């Protein structure tokens, strides 16, 4: 299990290769990468705030839950904080499992919990001002799937 919370950028390809290389007997590897979108146009900066200490604990718990539930061989979570700009990579997860169904489901599960249970908050800054991104009701209800 590899959990990282950092302001520095990460290299998706390098992380995916390192993750894949350290697996044995895992038939399926899934990665999910979240990217800053300029939805309305004019996004200058997306600032991600987090709760140091709790963030790492929450991500570790979420990763452990996924590992137990889906019998994963391995999990990686990297989540950035601080100022990001459009097309920057925000975060990634990777899962390794013997079969594809559990690798896919685990990645989906991780993302659902990461969205609503990991203490990150996004603020969008445009030339018109800045606004905190509101949580979506659907993100909360998505947890009921599991």
């Amino acid at each position: 299990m590899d959990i990282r919370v950092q302001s520095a950028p990460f290299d998706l390809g390098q992380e995916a290769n390192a993750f894949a290389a350290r697996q044995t007997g895992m038939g399926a590897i899934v990665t999910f990468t979240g990217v800053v979108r300029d939805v309305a146009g004019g996004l200058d900066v997306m600032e991600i705030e987090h709760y140091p200490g709790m963030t790492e604990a929450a991500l570790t718990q979420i990763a452990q839950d996924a590992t137990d539930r889906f019998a994963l061989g391995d999990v990686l979570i990297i989540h950035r904080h601080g100022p990001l700009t459009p097309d920057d990579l925000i975060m990634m997860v990777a899962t390794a499992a013997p079969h594809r169904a559990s690798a896919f489901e685990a990645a989906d599960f991780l993302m659902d919990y990461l969205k609503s249970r990991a203490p990150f908050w996004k603020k969008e800054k445009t030339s018109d001002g800045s606004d905190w991104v509101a949580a979506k009701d659907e993100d909360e209800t998505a947890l009921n799937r599991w």
Partner: protein
Amino acid sequence: MDVLYFAWVRERIGRPKDVVETQAATVMDLVEELRAREVRYEAAFADLSSLRVAVNQELTDFDAPLENAREVAFFPPMTGG
């Protein structure tokens, strides 16, 4: 006890942290004490349905007891990922 604020809660209160001496038995009792402090606290805690709380870095409810609480944090619903 450290009381932490994040995102717009932090902005509304104007600071990231208070160190609080309190006999509050529950989170809700602590919220009432904070509300009584100043209008900006009252504003930040006006609508509890838009807030979440963690005690000792674990998500919990507003009726959670504060026994053994070293750190309480208030923040809006999370938007990670």
